[in-house]
């Protein structure tokens, strides 16, 4: 998985929205597009700098939340065919398991895209086990 993510990083850089790539924060959070034709998905490689609880060597909850929020933005961007990333109104995360020291894979899903309110759900997995579930609501 690590090798795949590293290989895909450059190849798929162009598949991430420019607004994200233009932010300096995107250099810190190396989110990679690993979508297949049948399913959009994104990966975040494990890195020591993302550890929240050192005794578990688990991802910090804030990093998991940021990953979910960013993936929801990317998914809305693609599905609503926007010119720029929309800013979420609210983000709700359920943490289901500790996100341990392997890569995270996020799979977004459109719940509904309306004219003024859109909801994107994002499930985050590690080795096919779900570790977090997020719901991100946009109002513009």
């Amino acid at each position: 998985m690590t090798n795949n993510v590293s290989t895909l990083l450059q190849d798929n850089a162009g598949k991430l929205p420019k607004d994200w790539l233009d932010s300096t924060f995107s250099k810190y959070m190396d989110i990679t597009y690993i979508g297949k034709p049948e399913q959009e998905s994104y990966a975040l490689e494990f890195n020591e700098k993302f550890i929240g609880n050192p005794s578990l060597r688990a991802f910090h909850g804030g990093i998991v939340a940021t990953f979910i929020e960013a993936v929801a933005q990317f998914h809305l961007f693609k599905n609503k065919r926007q010119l720029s990333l929309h800013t979420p109104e609210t983000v709700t995360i359920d943490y289901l398991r500790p996100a341990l020291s392997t890569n995270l894979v996020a799979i977004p899903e459109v719940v509904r895209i309306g004219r003024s309110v859109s909801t994107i759900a994002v499930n985050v997995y590690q080795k096919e086990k779900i570790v977090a579930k997020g719901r991100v609501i946009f109002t513009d």
Partner: protein
Amino acid sequence: MNRNSKGCDIKETPLDQIKNIFLSDHLLFSDMGFVAKDIRRGYAEIFSPYNSLFSDKLGAMHRGVLVTLADTACGLAVFSALGEFAPIATVDLRVDYANPLRKGQDLEARIHCSYLGSTAAHVNGEVTAIENGCPQQVVARVTGIFAVNTPGKSFSENYQENNA
């Protein structure tokens, strides 16, 4: 000396100890420059200085830092309510964004632990933009639920082992 729910003696955790154990020795928190400004029982105030390396496309601090700061402050509020670094886990976190953050503004999270039970703690608070040391607009409101007394080692045990 206080006693915790298991009848064991616990020490009040001084701010300096939290700063050393929880913040300064932590890679993510030192990257983001988090500073514990005020820790009281059931309350945590954490500051994050503006850093252009963590900015969005407009140059303001990215919301990722805001969420990480909020989750960290929520955890500290729970630790301070418990009076010890017992193992805890975020179960649910909700962030409602309010006013946008502007370029150059720092962030400060102020989180209260509003309920502490034997298995869960509730937290809520705000993240405020700071300019030249003065609080400006509220940028987010935060609500969370933490599991307390979860299995595993505590933060302090881990650091004691690593620093032994």
